[in-house]
């Protein structure tokens, strides 16, 4: 540590360049991770808020709630652990606001999903053409009592409540009554809902034409969800590897320049482990410094970023990513170690 600290102190510019590189990589990784988390959450926030374990859909719906229709017979008898949901995509239109794409979810007032809605403002839906909407509507200027039309429906819908983090497939959710869902989908006979969600992990619906999935199976089949997550994981993984290579290259060059000095120290009896320790602690110090600055930048970003940017700053996850970067740096720092260990002290005798 002594040697590492002294070298960093003396070589401020060189060390600063390495730290700056790590800051940029660390910041990029933190922001990408937050974006990945934010988008993942906005895909699944609504489903997660229901606390559902099992979801029954039409077996021909390709595990997609939007494509699913269930008849009364397929829904069957529902206990207090189950709730019927009707889903459809809508566009909210109001004269004084820009159009907003959303997901309409029809609920029954006597079932647990409706009863567990955690509102931040207003009250639950009690009548037809009333809506509880995601706070994204608030950011677009909608208020309690605001009215708008959905799709081609001539009726106006009124906002009676706001709910936070109610998003499905990145679109804000509007909760309404099941009759309104039927109206929006122009259903007069036949289907009674899109899905049955259950809090009971052992729930299974064996009705003909219906199939029960775990919540995760349904989440994984959300359009674009897997592709989006894979892309982010790939990008973050690549950045990790790039950081490893950068740190390894810098440390390798720095170490190669010091080998004649190290040879003298070895000739003077300084154990290899002291020199190895100096090399590794140098990489740790540089990376930790870089990560601290990157964290500060991330905190500032989280503070000033607009609320509608889909980013989630999860401290345990970002901490894990930071540790991952540190591990990569350690691996990078180990690459020049072989040269340090095998330095030949004889080379310094005789000038």
């Amino acid at each position, binding site marked *: 540590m*002594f040697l590492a600290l002294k070298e960093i102190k003396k*070589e401020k510019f060189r060390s600063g360049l390495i730290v700056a590189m790590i800051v940029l990589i660390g910041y990029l990784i933190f922001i990408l991770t937050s974006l990945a988390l934010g988008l993942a959450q906005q895909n699944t926030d609504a489903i997660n808020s229901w606390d559902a374990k099992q979801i029954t859909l039409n077996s021909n719906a390709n595990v997609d709630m939007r494509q699913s229709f269930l008849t009364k017979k397929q829904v069957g008898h529902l206990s207090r652990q189950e709730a019927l949901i009707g889903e459809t995509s809508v566009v909210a239109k109001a004269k004084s606001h820009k159009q907003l794409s959303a997901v309409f979810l029809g609920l029954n007032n006597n079932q647990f999903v409706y009863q567990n809605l955690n509102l931040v403002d207003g009250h639950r839906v009690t009548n037809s053409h009333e809506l509880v909407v995601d706070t994204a509507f608030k950011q677009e200027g909608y208020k309690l009592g605001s009215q708008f039309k959905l799709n081609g429906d001539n009726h106006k819908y009124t906002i009676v409540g706001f709910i936070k983090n109610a998003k499905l497939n990145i679109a804000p959710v509007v909760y309404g009554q099941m009759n309104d869902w039927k109206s929006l989908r122009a259903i007069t006979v036949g289907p009674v809902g899109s899905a049955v969600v259950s809090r009971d992990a052992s729930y299974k619906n064996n009705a003909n034409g219906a199939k029960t999935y775990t919540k995760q199976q349904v989440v994984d089949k959300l359009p674009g969800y897997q592709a989006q997550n894979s892309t982010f994981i790939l990008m973050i993984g690549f950045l990790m590897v790039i950081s490893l290579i950068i740190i390894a290259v810098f440390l390798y060059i720095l170490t190669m320049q010091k080998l004649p*000095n190290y040879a003298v120290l070895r000739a003077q*009896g300084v154990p290899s482990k002291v020199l190895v320790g100096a090399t590794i602690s140098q990489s740790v110090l540089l990376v930790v410094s870089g990560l601290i600055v990157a964290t500060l930048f991330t905190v500032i970003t989280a503070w000033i970023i607009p609320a509608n940017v889909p980013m989630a700053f999860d401290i345990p996850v970002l901490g894990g990513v930071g540790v991952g970067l540190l591990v990569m740096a350690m691996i990078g720092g180990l690459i020049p170690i072989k040269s340090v260990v095998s330095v030949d*002290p004889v080379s*310094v*005798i*005789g000038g």
Partner: protein
Amino acid sequence: MSSFSVKNVNQIFGTGTAEVHVLHDVNFEAEPSTLSLIMGPSGSGKSTFLSIVGGLLTPTSGTVEVNGLSYNERSKKERDALRLDSIGFVLQAYHLLPYLTVADQFKLVDKIKPQGNLSREALTDVLETLGIKDLLNKYPGELSGGQQQRVAIARALYPDPAIILADEPTAALDSARVAIIVKLLKDLAVKHHKAVVVVTHDGRLVDSADRLYEMKDGYLTKSTPEVSR
């Protein structure tokens, strides 16, 4: 009792047609309170001899005993510890760590070997003698070649080794500085009972030597000031 002894040492590099016999049956003894000078031209085997004596190189045949124990009987770790405790290397290529100030060069020794180093007063004496007391806060890059060489000498003496092996210690110095270095090495031998061995081709050191040797084509022989000068 000798500080170290070299018995029938041969050193051969390479094999077949590339074989070079660098040292031939070298025998040598260094005793405390003695300044031994090994003179010889470049390529005569002086540096190889010094590497073997310092335990950096294992000879093809023969033995080197330090404090009564052969290098062959010591592990690599023990040889490192021996060099750290008992052998002070003064090297021609001084290679001070560029990011340590002169003061930090000594602090590094304290970190690795916390005990048995020169006292603060003794170090100050050495620094004053070498004329580098005012350079403690300077980095090697801010020093002249001669100043760096003197810092390297002080650094080698700081662990208070019983044996001092010097490789061309006066190569970068003017005559006035040479006189100071020679006096210092002589004092270390006489007053502090060190075994000092200097390999050099600098004739200005000849008069200070208690024992004089000549290395020629890998053969080490006793010499006289008249021959060596």
